[in-house]
C-alpha cells in the first residue's frame, strides 16, 4: 500500500518541497515556529503553528525564512503582499480565516488589485494559508467558512482541498503560482490520513476532481463536505442510486466544465457547502448551472448549507449547524421520488 500521511503532514511536505526548490519562498505568521529568541529552545520550535502543521520547518530553514510575527495580521499580511510584489514568494499563515477581519484591506484592496491597477506591471506570488471550518467547538470567531467571500474578489484565487493528496499537490501549485492564492485548510481534516505521493508534484488550480462516479445525480461538495457527500453517496448506493461527487478543489477559478458535464449526465444537482447560505459558493455554482446548464436539469437545484447564523459553541447546536449525510439524503429525496431514501 502506498504511503499514508495526514492532511497536516501533507501541507508540511508541500511547504518543504517548495522551500527547498526556491529560496525566495518564506513562511510568515503567528507562532509558525514559536518561541522566537528563547535561548533554552535553541533551534527548536515551540509550536510549529497552533496546530503543529509547520512543525520542524524552522530547524531546516531557519528563522530568516520561517518568521514568527507579532499578532498583527494587517502588518504581516500586508508585508507579505509587498514582499511578493518585490521578488519574494511568501506564504502567509492567517491562523484562522475569521481573522481576515483584521487584514481584509491588505488582501482585498492591496494584494488583489495591485497588478490590475498597475496595468499588469506587478505580480503577487503570495499564498495565504488559512484554517476554516466548524465542528471543532471553537465558537463563532474561530469556526467560520469564508471562502465564498474571497471568491467574490477579482485578483484572488481560492483553493479548498478535501484530501491529503490534493492538499499537497494544490499547495505546491499555489506556492509556485504567480498570483495571490488563498488556501483553505479545514481544521477538522488535519488528522485525516490518506495516500500521498512522495516528492514534488502539482495539481492544477482550476481543475475539479470527480471523487465518485455516478449517473443518477451530481453532488458538488467543497472541502471536507466532500467526505460528507461521499458518505451520503454510499448510503444512496444501497438504494440503487448512484451519485457522482464532484470536488471543485478550487473555487476561483472554478472548473465550470466538469460541473456542467456531470449535470448533463445526471440531470440533478445538489451542492454541499458548509458556509452560510447567502452569497456563498453553493449559490454561485447554482447560478452557473441555472445559467449554462438549465436544459440539463430534470429537477430544481438543491443546496445543503449551514443556516443563516453564526457558528454556535454548544456541541448540541454546532452538530445541527453543519451539513450531514442525513441532510443530503433529505434533499435527494426531494429530487428523486423515493421516500425510502430519507430512512436509509
Amino acid at each position, binding site marked *: 500500500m502506498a504511503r499514508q500521511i495526514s492532511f497536516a503532514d501533507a501541507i508540511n511536505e508541500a511547504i518543504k518541497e517548495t522551500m527547498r526548490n526556491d529560496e525566495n519562498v518564506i513562511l510568515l505568521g*503567528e*507562532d509558525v515556529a*514559536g*518561541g*522566537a*529568541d*528563547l535561548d*533554552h*529552545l535553541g533551534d*527548536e520550535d*515551540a*509550536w510549529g503553528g*497552533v496546530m503543529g502543521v509547520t512543525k520542524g520547518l524552522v530547524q531546516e530553514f531557519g528563522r530568516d525564512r520561517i518568521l*514568527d*510575527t*507579532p*499578532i*498583527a495580521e*494587517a*502588518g504581516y499580511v500586508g508585508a507579505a503582499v509587498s514582499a511578493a510584489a518585490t521578488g519574494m514568494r511568501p506564504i502567509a499563515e492567517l491562523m484562522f480565516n*475569521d*481573522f481576515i*477581519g*483584521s487584514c481584509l484591506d491588505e488582501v482585498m484592496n492591496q494584494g488583489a488589485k495591485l497588478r490590475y491597477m498597475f496595468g499588469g506591471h506587478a505580480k503577487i506570488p503570495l499564498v495565504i494559508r488559512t484554517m476554516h471550518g466548524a465542528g*471543532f*467547538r*471553537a*465558537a*463563532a*470567531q*474561530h469556526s467560520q467558512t469564508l471562502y465564498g467571500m474571497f471568491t467574490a474578489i477579482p485578483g484572488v484565487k481560492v483553493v479548498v482541498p478535501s484530501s491529503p493528496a490534493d492538499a499537497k499537490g494544490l499547495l505546491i501549485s499555489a506556492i509556485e503560482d504567480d498570483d495571490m492564492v488563498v488556501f483553505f485548510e479545514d481544521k477538522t481534516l488535519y488528522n485525516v490520513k490518506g495516500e500521498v505521493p512522495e516528492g514534488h508534484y502539482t495539481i492544477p488550480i482550476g481543475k475539479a476532481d470527480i471523487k465518485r462516479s455516478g449517473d443518477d445525480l451530481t453532488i458538488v461538495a467543497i472541502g471536507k463536505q466532500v467526505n460528507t457527500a461521499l458518505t451520503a453517496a454510499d448510503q444512496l448506493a444501497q438504494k440503487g442510486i448512484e451519485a457522482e461527487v464532484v470536488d471543485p478543489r478550487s473555487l476561483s477559478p472554478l472548473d465550470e466544465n466538469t460541473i456542467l458535464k456531470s449535470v448533463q449526465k445526471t440531470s440533478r444537482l445538489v451542492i454541499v457547502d458548509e458556509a452560510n447560505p447567502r452569497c456563498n459558493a453553493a449559490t454561485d455554482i447554482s447560478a452557473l448551472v441555472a445559467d449554462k446548464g438549465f436544459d440539463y436539469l430534470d429537477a430544481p437545484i438543491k443546496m445543503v448549507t449551514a*443556516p*443563516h*447564523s*453564526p457558528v*454556535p*459553541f*454548544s*456541541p*448540541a*447546536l454546532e452538530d*445541527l*449547524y453543519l451539513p450531514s449525510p442525513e441532510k443530503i439524503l433529505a434533499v435527494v429525496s426531494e429530487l428523486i421520488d423515493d421516500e425510502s431514501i430519507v430512512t436509509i
Partner: protein
Amino acid sequence: MRVSEVQQESLTAAKAKWMYQKMVEIRRFEDQVHETFSTGTIPGFVHLYAGEEAVAVGVCSHLDDKDYITSTHRGHGHCIAKGCDLKGMMAEIYGKATGLCKGKGGSMHIADVSKGMLGANGIVGGGFPLATGAGLSAKLRKTGGVAVCFFGDGANNHGTFHEGINQAAIWDLPVIFVAENNGYGESTPFEYASSCKSIADRATGYNIPGETVDGKDTMAVYEAAQRAVERARNGEGPSLIECVTYRNYGHFEGDAQTYKTQGEREQHLNELDAIIRFREQLLSNNLATEDELHSIDENVRQAVADAVEFAEKSPMPEADQLTTDVYVNYKPGGEE
C-alpha cells in the same frame, strides 16, 4: 510588605476580603476548568487566567455595574471580577442552555451585559475600539461610568491598539487600558514581538499617563487603577496601565509550554504568587484573620463545586436555538 496608610484608608477590611474572595474564586474556577478539561467533558478551546488574578481584581474593585469592561480570549478572570455568576459561567463553558450566553458563545465569548461585562473576545485586539465606544457612550449618556479594556501583551502590537487608544485620547474618554503583560503572546516572548521596552512607554505617543506595575502585587494594581479610574471619572481622559504578570497554565489547555523555563514557572507558582502575597498582606495588616480567609477558601471551594454540578445537570440548548438571537427582528424571505 506593609500596606501603606493611604492604602489602608482607601481599602476597608470588607473590600479587602471581597478582593481576596474574588481572587480565590478565579483561581479555584480555573483550576477546576483545567482539571475537567483534561477529562474531555469541556468542548473546544479554553484559555485559563490563573496566575493573573491580581490584575482583574485590583482593577474591577474600583468598578460597579454601570462601568464596562472588555475582555480577551483569557476572559474567565475578568468575568468573575466583574461579578458574573459562577454557575452561569461554568454552564456556558459546558455549552449548556443555562449558560450566561445560552451555550452559544462558550469560554471565549462569555458575557453579561447587565454586569457591564462586554464579552470575552476571540479576536486579539478586539477590545480597544469596543472599550473606546463604551467610554464614548458613558460620556455622552452622562452615566458617570468608565470602560476598562483588558488586553494582553500580544494585542499591544495590533493595529487596533493604536486606533482605539488614540481615539479615546483625542476625545478625553473615560477609558482605562489595562495591559496584562504575561510575557508571552501565545508562544512568542513579549521581547521578541514588541519593539518597546514596556507597553506603558507607548502611552507617551498618545499624550496620556502610562505606568508599569507589578501585576502580581494586588495592591500595586489596585492603587494604579484607582488613579486611572478617578482620572476617567473626572473627565480627564484615558490612562494606560501595564501589569506585569504571568499565566500559570499554557496559552490554551493542551499547550506544552516549552517556551517557559522550569525555574520561572516554579517561582511564579510559589513566592511570586499573587494570592499568597495578598493573603499575607491582609493578615499582616489586620485586614482579615486566618479564620476568615479559611472560611472564604472553603466557601469558594463549595461555590465552584456547585457551579460544576449546575453545569453538569443543565440541559443542552434545544435545536430551535440554532437560529435565534441572530437579529432582533428579521424576516427570512423579506416582507410579504
